[in-house]
């Protein structure tokens, strides 16, 4: 049962990813990305990582994607970018990278399959995660917070000149 659910969900995730990378309109791609992330969240749930599933939905599909939405809306691209994308995305452009990526995929598959086949699905609940966080991985948490601080400062710094020189909603 869980296996069938897993297959369906992974199919959704793969389909969504494929759709995402082939869209001409950035917003459409974004929506497919959200779909992919949600599918992966479901997979997390199936694997017994409830905490991770929740985090995936809230933070990844929630906050980060909203950030993307903001930026795309701010850079109001419009019809002309769609035309541009159509020009850029010729079929022949897909061949090279696809071949390369396929080779890589095969290699990874080989590595994976040659490993041990143990069962997955042990539930690891939030309590365990919390204890681990405040125990051995305390330093990692601190580092993560410094990273976030750095990202905050960097984003603010990068955005600052823009605030001064551009009016909101300007059509570029």
């Amino acid at each position: 049962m869980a296996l069938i659910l897993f297959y369906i969900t992974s199919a959704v995730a793969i389909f969504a990813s494929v759709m995402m990378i082939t869209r001409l309109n950035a917003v459409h791609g974004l929506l497919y990305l959200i779909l992919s992330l949600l599918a992966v969240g479901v997979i997390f749930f199936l694997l017994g990582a409830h905490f991770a599933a929740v985090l995936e939905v809230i933070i990844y599909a929630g906050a980060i994607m909203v950030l993307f939405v903001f930026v795309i809306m701010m850079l109001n691209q419009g019809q002309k970018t769609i035309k541009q994308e159509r020009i850029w995305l010729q079929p022949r452009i897909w061949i090279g990278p696809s071949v390369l990526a396929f080779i890589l995929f095969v290699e990874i598959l080989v590595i994976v399959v040659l490993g041990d086949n143990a069962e997955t699905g042990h539930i690891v609940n939030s309590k365990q995660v919390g204890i681990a966080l405040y125990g051995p991985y305390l330093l990692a948490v601190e580092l993560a917070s410094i990273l976030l601080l750095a990202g905050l400062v960097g984003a603010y710094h990068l955005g600052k000149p823009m605030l001064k020189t551009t009016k909101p909603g300007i059509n570029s």
Partner: protein
Amino acid sequence: MELGLSLSAVLFVLGLIGVMVRRNLIMILMSLEVMLNATGLAFIVAGSRWGEADGQIMFLLILTLAAAEVGVGLGLALQIFHRFRTLDADSVNEMQG
């Protein structure tokens, strides 16, 4: 377990293709997100297999990283747009050789 890892591999490769093919900066960033997500999936699968919390903690750190990266990356994308008036990744090429 290998199913999960294979799925992770597929998603990773798809994201890689997106990074290599798309020219729009935003699309590149979004493909990057897919790749990060796939890595996180791999970690969760591993953690689930051993029944440890370490997998989810790694996933948490990856998530943090993704968030910071998106913040800075989008800021950079905005700067490029502001300067070059286009989101074409190839337009920021100043090499003359």
